[in-house]
């Protein structure tokens, strides 16, 4: 990972942590903060790994939206 990529990753992790802290910060001590940042980093890394896989516009997600019509 280059320096700029590393900075970007750190910034994304920090932004997500701040989102959690804004909502639940009174629940987190220092150890919790460290664990949460580690958990967030894993998810950020996972998302980055998937962004590296090329997908086309036609690649649909693996679920089907079932429109409903109930007669009677």
């Amino acid at each position, binding site marked *: 990972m280059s320096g700029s990529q590393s900075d970007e990753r750190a910034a994304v992790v920090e932004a997500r942590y701040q989102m959690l802290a804004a909502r639940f910060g009174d*629940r987190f001590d220092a150890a919790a903060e460290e664990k949460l940042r580690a958990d967030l980093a894993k998810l950020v890394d996972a998302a980055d790994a998937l962004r590296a896989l090329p997908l086309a516009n036609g*690649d649909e*997600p693996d679920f089907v939206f079932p429109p409903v019509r109930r007669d009677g």
Partner: protein
Amino acid sequence: MSTNDDHVSFATIRELGRMIRSGETTPTRLAEHFLGRLETIGPELNAVVTLTRERAMREAQLAEDELASGYDRGPLHGIPYGAKDLLATAGIPTSWGAEPLREQIFADDATAVKKLRDAGAVLVAKLAMIEMAGGMGYNQPVASLTGAPRNPWNRESWTGGSSSGSGAAVAAGLVPFAIGSETGGSILSPSSYCGLSGLRPSYGRISRHGAMALCWTLDKLGPMCHTADDTGIVLQALAGYDPADGSTLQQTYRYEPEIARSSGFRLGVLRQGLDLVQPEVNANFEAACTALGSVATLENVELPDYPYGDIYTLILSSEGAAAFEDLIERGVISGLTAPEDRLGGYAGLTVTAVEYLRAMRVRRRINDEVDALLSRYDAIVHPATNTVASPIGVNFDLFAKPWSRRNTLTSLGNLSGFPALSVMSGFGERGLPTGMQIAGRVGSESTLIAVGSAYQQLTDWHDQHPSD
């Protein structure tokens, strides 16, 4: 009881059914027998949340009366079983393994429990599980309101999870069969660690209505038994479309062992990743392949190259956070047993919709490729777990080094929704079982069971049982 107690404790469903119909035993005597073992041995293993004595004796008496009158509901009639404590049971607590939810009660039975009741099976216990089915990210065995689940083969080791009590109870002869669930390994791992035959069916094969949801697109229910054949009997009773669970398959399922093959199988052998598997697990797997060689042709296969772990992590984290959003928001998870579980749900709240959808788009590609691969074989075989069960008190990541904690075929199987059967393949360190998984295309459960049954005709691992 006129028969040897050990024989009854570890008898298969078929054998118990024969004993009932021959008059050697009765449903009420069986219920008393297994309730007695659950009462005495269950707490030693931390395997039981709630004994359902009153319901059990009522169901057992009904089964007895029906059979006496000539009304035979089938092979599960009068057979006791345990249900993982994420399955709703009317008026009886359903804790999800979580201390804050110890007294949670639902008004109705889950569909799976109703189907077993309709089949005449007798519910004797709600069985222990890892809290929230492991979805909060536990990393050591003390992660349940019932304490660390103890492996009947070595009580200083855990059972695997999250269907921990189901694994312990069947392995220790406390119930003839149990219902577990799997999102990312929770049937296969306790089945492998406890020496059982455990079936993770195709996604949608068994209704999840009334079962705790961890991850809607990954969760499945399945039977954990002494033999592959028994898993087929239970699956037939449980399978079927349920309008209350829109993910259930429209196709019916019939278990017909009398017309199943016992040889001539074409098996793919997945040897990728075996360098990250414990040596004894590996050796037992190779021995199993040698045994299967007498009933199958085997050829090496390789899986498509995708970051299965990353895809699984994103889907599980986000769906899990959504499923438990209320509990996370209200801070209920702060009362969970494992310290890491008290914080485990928060990160998933930050996964973006686009990230989740990307994971689901890659998943669609994987599923198409994997089905093409699986279609070339009756089944693919691989170790069910990469190691034997770890000692209680040891962090999983620490125990797994230098091997890998994650089993690629299990991750892929759960992502793609294809079924897998775990069967015991031998013993490893500390006297603990090892397991082999037999995986196949969506809808191929009967073929997997046929391969498993053929293997169990060639070996006797499934006949081995721990002592009390």
